[in-house]
């Protein structure tokens, strides 16, 4: 049995009076890639954003239940969210590098968290860019604005920025939905290359993508977790009628 990195227990989430997540139970194994799939509005991104408590920015979001990271409930009032978000990185749907230079983007998390000295900074930036397969393309342009990069390069920069602070978990919120197929392939290759080093959770509406990259897949529908299992089992031998209909393309 694998070690469980993240354990979601009886999670309910409300935006105002509307219940968006209903009694979610989900155990995410360490070092693996777990995909969250389901039709739009099923709550998969909402679940993802609960894991680094990004809902704290919305005053009307209420969460109940537990999310255990290495056994500690991160939804507890006393959790230091700044520390939590250092451990749980995130890559967003739309590539969102800061309007700064390429090097400054990667260095940002290192600087604010004081993770390395000034002299180490260059090496750490280079290492992160190498790990995200971007180094070769930007080595001569580190001081150029990150906004001059292509969409796919920007997204890989965002991944470099996230892995620079050496998180334990990385959350991907539909990271390829704004990208062309070639850039998508590069991102997928990158995510698979990071398998084992980080626990990765990826929200995707692209079922082929889930099959290509994910070890485990969770299917969600209308705020509920319908089925969770090994990716192969979910796509080939789903236990639930709903899952079967969804993965075979009958709806969604």
């Amino acid at each position, binding site marked *: 049995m694998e070690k469980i990195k993240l354990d979601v227990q009886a999670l309910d989430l409300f935006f105002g009076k509307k219940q968006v997540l209903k009694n979610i139970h989900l155990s995410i194994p360490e070092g693996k890639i777990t995909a969250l799939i389901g039709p739009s509005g099923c709550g998969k991104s909402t679940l993802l954003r609960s894991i680094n408590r990004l809902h704290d920015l919305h005053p009307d979001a209420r969460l109940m239940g537990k999310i255990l990271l290495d056994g500690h409930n991160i939804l507890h009032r006393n959790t230091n969210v700044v520390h939590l978000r250092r451990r749980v990185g995130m890559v967003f749907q739309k590539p969102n590098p800061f309007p700064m230079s390429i090097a400054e983007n990667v260095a940002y998390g290192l600087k604010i968290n004081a993770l390395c000295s000034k002299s180490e900074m260059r090496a750490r930036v280079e290492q992160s860019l190498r790990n995200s397969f971007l180094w070769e393309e930007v080595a001569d342009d580190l001081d150029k*604005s990150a906004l001059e990069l292509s969409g796919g390069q920007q997204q890989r920069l965002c991944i470099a920025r996230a892995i620079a602070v050496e998180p334990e978990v990385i959350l991907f919120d539909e990271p390829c939905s704004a990208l062309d197929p070639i850039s998508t392939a590069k991102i997928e290759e990158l995510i698979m290359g990071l398998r084992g080093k980080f626990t990765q959770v990826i929200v995707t509406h692209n079922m082929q993508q889930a099959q290509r990259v994910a070890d485990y897949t969770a299917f969600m529908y209308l705020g509920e977790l319908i089925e969770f299992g090994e990716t192969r089992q979910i796509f080939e031998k789903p236990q639930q009628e709903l899952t079967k209909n969804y993965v075979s393309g009958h709806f969604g």
Partner: protein
Amino acid sequence: MKSRFFWDTFFNKTLSAAALVSVLTLAGIFLLLLYNGLQAFSTIDIAEFLSAAPWNPAAYDAPVFGIGAMLFSTLIVTFGSMLIAVPLGIGTAAFLSEMASPRLRNLLKPAIEMLAAIPSVVIGFLGIVLVAPGLAQVFDLPNGLNALNGSILLAVMALPTLISVSEDAIHAVPDYYKEASYALGANRWETLLRVTLPACKSGVLAAVMLGLGRALGETMTVLMATGNATAMPHSIFDPVRTITATVAIEMGEVPFRTPHFYSLFACALVLFLITLGVNIAAERLAARLRKKGQ
């Protein structure tokens, strides 16, 4: 069909003419200042005019026209007001946009904008009866009508524009920048200082320049509240007289088409060139910042 075409052309031309009015007005004002202002230098030495020589235009035997002290006064009063207004204004704007609840923001922002509706003569009045005596007491001065008093009042007058425009700029920074910063473990302060404000610096700069323009050109308040001494000030506690105040005080009583009359136009011309320079510099800087951000 013909009448529709006619009306379309008619409105097109009318609107173009309306747009032209403001451009022509600007050009007209500039030419007027230039024409009258330059005539001053047929009798006054331009070096003396810009020097620290005293301003004594009504002297019977040998009038002296030196605006150095007034120019310097204008600059320190304005600079002082920006020293007060810029941190206060950007701080308030950041609070309104990033920290305050939507309810508080909707309450505070109109209230701050209302501050701009107070006539400058009222601010000057408050300066005389409230701020100046306060300054005199705090700093133990014979009276508080001095450069610092003017700076404080001008800061109050520049604040509404400064806050309102920079709040708009800060608020327009997309959420995805802030989310990316939070997701990397930044707190609100770090996000504001390192991501949000740098992302909208051209907008904030525009706000500062608008406030600066307001402070540079303000007349009534400084006329009432700074003591109106034409001597060169040695500290911010000295009474001063700005260029605007000088023109306002003397223009009504000056004999027509005398060197004194033309010298006041030259004063206005200097002021106009300063504000024009500030605006052009701001425009360039903002354009460069925008380009760098892209």
